[in-house]
């Protein structure tokens, strides 16, 4: 095993071009566990943990979030409510000070806490390599499967970009305590009133992040009726119908953290609450 610590992004891309099999180390919260437990023995590790070029965060109407931005910095700097709430549920302060959004994207787990929000914000992932330069990937194309990001050999996640979507956002996560929980299931909902767009995305509910498109259309219809600038008053029947549509989109499995049946149930409950919260935020 050897470790390279490039001093610049350019040097990192050079190392990855020479050795596309090299494993990239960011915050270490996944890779170091695998190494500590003997589950991973990479031949070559390229550490990008301390590259200042990846830590830039521009938080305006267009958000540009460098891959090396930690959850702590995200929740201090970003205004998109769902992302702030999700970042705050990641691990503990120790984990939030280390883990990065680029690491969440690179690990590409369906339980990655920020991933449902990036889906619901229609984010674009910008990757870069020495050979092909920058390449833009819509989030909907990012996850090819569990732990299979749309990264080609030699490529590095450079940043995530999205348009700030206003205050009507919700993130909900089910687990056994508030801290240190890998999501049993999670849900992000964004009602972008300016762009007249509703997005609902589910985490830990299938092999990738799943969009609940039928539920999105139903919610759009409800909002259309009262007007996009106005708060939504919901009937019990509308909330139940929305919850059913969201739960029907999930493809949950039974595993050590929960059963598929429980996940589907809790996703319905979270969906009903998310519709209530985003509907009230006008």
């Amino acid at each position: 095993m050897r470790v390279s610590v490039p001093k610049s992004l350019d040097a990192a891309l050079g190392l990855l071009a020479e050795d596309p099999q090299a494993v990239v180390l960011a915050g270490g919260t996944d890779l170091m566990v695998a190494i500590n437990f003997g589950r991973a023995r990479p031949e070559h590790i390229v550490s990008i943990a301390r590259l200042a070029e990846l830590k830039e965060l521009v938080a305006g109407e267009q958000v540009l979030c460098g891959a090396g931005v930690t959850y702590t910095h995200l929740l201090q700097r970003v205004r998109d409510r769902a992302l702030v709430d999700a970042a705050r549920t990641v691990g503990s302060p120790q984990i939030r000070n280390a883990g990065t959004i680029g690491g969440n994207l690179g690990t590409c787990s369906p339980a990655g806490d920020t991933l449902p929000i990036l889906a619901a914000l229609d984010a674009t992932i910008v990757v870069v390599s020495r050979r092909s330069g920058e390449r833009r990937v819509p989030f909907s194309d990012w996850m090819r499967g569990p732990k299979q990001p749309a990264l080609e050999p030699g490529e590095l996640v450079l940043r995530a970009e999205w348009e700030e979507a206003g205050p009507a956002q919700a993130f909900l996560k089910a687990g056994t305590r508030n801290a240190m929980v890998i999501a049993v299931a999670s849900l992000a909902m964004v009602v972008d009133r300016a762009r007249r767009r509703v997005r609902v995305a589910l985490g830990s509910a299938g092999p990738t992040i799943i969009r609940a498109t039928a539920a999105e259309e139903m919610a759009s219809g409800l909002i259309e009726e009262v007007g996009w600038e106005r708060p939504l008053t919901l009937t019990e029947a509308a909330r139940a119908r929305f919850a059913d549509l969201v739960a029907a989109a999930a493809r949950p499995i039974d595993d050590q953290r929960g059963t598929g049946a429980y996940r589907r149930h809790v996703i319905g409950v979270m969906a009903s609450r998310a519709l209530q919260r985003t509907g009230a935020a006008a």
Partner: protein
Amino acid sequence: MTQVRLQVNGAVREAEAWPGESLLYFLRERLGLFGSKNACEQGECGSCSVFFDGELVCSCLVLAAAAEGAQIVTVEGLEDDPVAARVREAMVAAGGVQCGFCTPGFVVAMTGLLRGNRHPSDLETREALSGNLCRCTGYVRIFEAVRRAGDALE
């Protein structure tokens, strides 16, 4: 093996290490700094907490060979720190120490909390210490120690 050179508690410390070694292992087994405890090795328990460029992290999740240039402060490096001194006294006075295994990690995390906020609310304390596990005290006396240390810092 590879030569690793780190800034630990204000001094340059150098030793041979396996390239995949965690900072925690390096601190304990190469430098003899046994204050940071080795328990879960997966970032769950906080007993290996250190400051890394001023930020609280689990040293088990830091690759030692990639930490060159960072300022690392362990619980040993807090000996003369005025906030940590009040934290240690308060942990004794409040009975926040039982078996003591988690205590160094808690002292580091509590020092970090009180540096930024002398009088955290109960919820702020719980969130700030949520990455440190204690299986003896039930946390009540540790939270009491946070209050006492905050008062003593006035």
